[in-house]
């Protein structure tokens, strides 16, 4: 009896400390990644990287200024489409949606959110690149916006839902119409949360690589317009990392560091805006 109880107690301590080890391991991975990337990226990062164009393969030096600007261009296009559409859809789901249709839209948004990004890339390729006969920043932006829409819609809906019903009733009782209530009371009450969701969404698409591979493609030079192939940081990290040149590897590290810093800063900023911790909805 006592032996059995002692065994049960020991087992309990053992298993519980094992779960602690699991948690520490999971977090340790993050610090290993950050540490190694900082170590390699920081050594490789220099002024040239931020201001110069890439050199031809094999030549030393050069930078990725065009990819940094290109990434910003593509993200700008994606947010221009993705945020308004996602926001409006979120408003519908939270404020106007009935039962069946809203459920359907919600479910579709979750499914779209789960579609592999490479498949989104194929879609953007068939609807933009093929008709225009051109790889373009536009196609890349559209592909990324399709990832952004469901994310924004669901997070907007979630934060609008958390606005107390009494606020809506108060505004309606004062004689405001429904859309006025939404525009001047409900959305302002939830704007921190909505902004957080949007920033997290943009941070997520900023690192997406697969949908850009055959939409915006790549470019060794400055892109002259939204209808031209455009370099982007994630694609540059990919092409440089798998290339056989040491100097390209160095640049891949630098590009990876710049990309990760951008994504992490956006993530931390988003969480600071919302002051209390929230969990990411994927």
């Amino acid at each position, binding site marked *: 009896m006592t032996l059995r109880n002692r065994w*049960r107690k020991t*087992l*309990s301590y053992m*298993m*519980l400390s*094992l779960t602690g*080890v*699991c*948690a520490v*391991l*999971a*977090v340790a991975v*993050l610090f290993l*990644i950050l540490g190694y990337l900082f170590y390699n990226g920081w050594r490789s990062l220099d002024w040239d990287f931020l201001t110069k164009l890439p050199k031809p393969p094999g030549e030393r030096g050069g930078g990725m200024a065009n990819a940094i600007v290109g990434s910003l261009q593509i993200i700008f296009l994606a947010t221009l489409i993705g945020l*308004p*559409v996602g926001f*409006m*859809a979120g408003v*519908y789901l939270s404020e106007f949606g009935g039962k069946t249709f809203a459920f359907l*839209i919600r*479910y*579709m948004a*979750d*499914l*779209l959110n*789960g*579609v*592999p990004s*490479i*498949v*989104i*890339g*194929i*879609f953007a390729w*068939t609807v933009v690149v093929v008709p225009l006969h051109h790889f373009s920043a536009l196609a890349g932006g559209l592909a990324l916006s*399709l990832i952004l*829409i*469901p994310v924004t819609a669901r997070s907007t809906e*979630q934060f609008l839902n958390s606005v107390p019903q009494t606020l809506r009733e108060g505004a309606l009782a004062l004689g405001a119409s*429904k*859309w006025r209530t*939404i525009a001047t009371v409900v959305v302002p009450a939830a704007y921190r949360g909505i902004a957080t969701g949007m920033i997290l969404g943009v*941070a997520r698409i*900023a*690192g997406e*690589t*697969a949908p850009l*591979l*055959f939409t915006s*493609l790549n470019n060794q030079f400055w892109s002259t317009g939204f209808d031209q192939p455009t370099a982007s940081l994630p694609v540059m*990290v*990919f092409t440089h*990392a798998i290339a056989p040149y040491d100097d390209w590897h160095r640049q891949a*590290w630098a590009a*990876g560091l710049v990309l*990760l810093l951008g994504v992490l800063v956006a*993530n*931390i900023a988003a969480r600071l805006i919302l002051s209390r*911790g929230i969990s*990411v909805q994927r």
Partner: protein
Amino acid sequence: MATSSVLAAPSPTGARAFLKRLRSGDEVARLITLAFATSILLVTVGLLYELWIGSALARQRFGFGFLTSSAWDPVSERFGALPFIYGTVVTSAVALIIAVPLGLGAAIFLAELAPPRVSSTFTFFIELLAAVPSVIYGLLAIFTLVPLMRTVVEPFLSRTLGFLPIFKGAFYGVGYLTGGVILAIMTLPFIISISREALLEVPTEQREAALALGATRWESTWQVVVPYARLGIFGSIFLALARALGETMAVTMVIGNDPSIRASLFAPGYTIAAIIANEFTEATGEIYLDALVGLGLVLFLLTIVINAVARLLIIATTRRGSTNP
């Protein structure tokens, strides 16, 4: 947009009330937001349609044989999806075998044991881990994980478990095992954060009842709390599986790009997402391109089904409707 068809359908309160709401702007606002919401539906349906049309040639030429053939020969235009499906399934399975115990353990620690402060700090870091772009994982894997696998892990596995066919053969560094390990690292945050939420949903009375009956802390956790939250935990696993199946960049960088089926986990292979990423821009000839789009269709359907199951499971656990999975 589609106002005419919507106007034609009378609202339940009659045409007059409808006109009144139209004047006050409410109906306009509803229709506008409805149009945007419908675009989500249209995009999802459009995606399926384009993939279906885009793979027409491959479907006609190969039929269901496409799924069971292991030929991949662009020169003689013979295409089969089997090596890629095999690679995708094997890498995802390896990922889950590693990530599920680790993730569940960490989730139990964060939900059951850790003080709230520690728990929220850890959760914060784990969510940052989920935000790291996949190409960064790939970059790190190429330069750290691949050499490590080749010189340490694979020789070790071969020495200790070499009698199993999956741990036989030469050490390449790149291959199914490396792809699986990187996928495990990438899916871990999803398993932890969703399982943790499912565990936190379990009512405190359940734990107290178990403890009052004399169960140890671990027994109450493992035999009462975890089974209570099982749907949410399964949901997180399915979600992680869907992620792993569709993950592209990191796997593409370490899988080895060899379209053949091998029993050894050390051997280089290929996944569906990886071959699309590598060959799509180089595909010459309609049938080649259609075969790649066909692979995209297979991947799409695979992840859609698994995602649908995951979402249903998560909705079922929270039992609060689908607004807050």
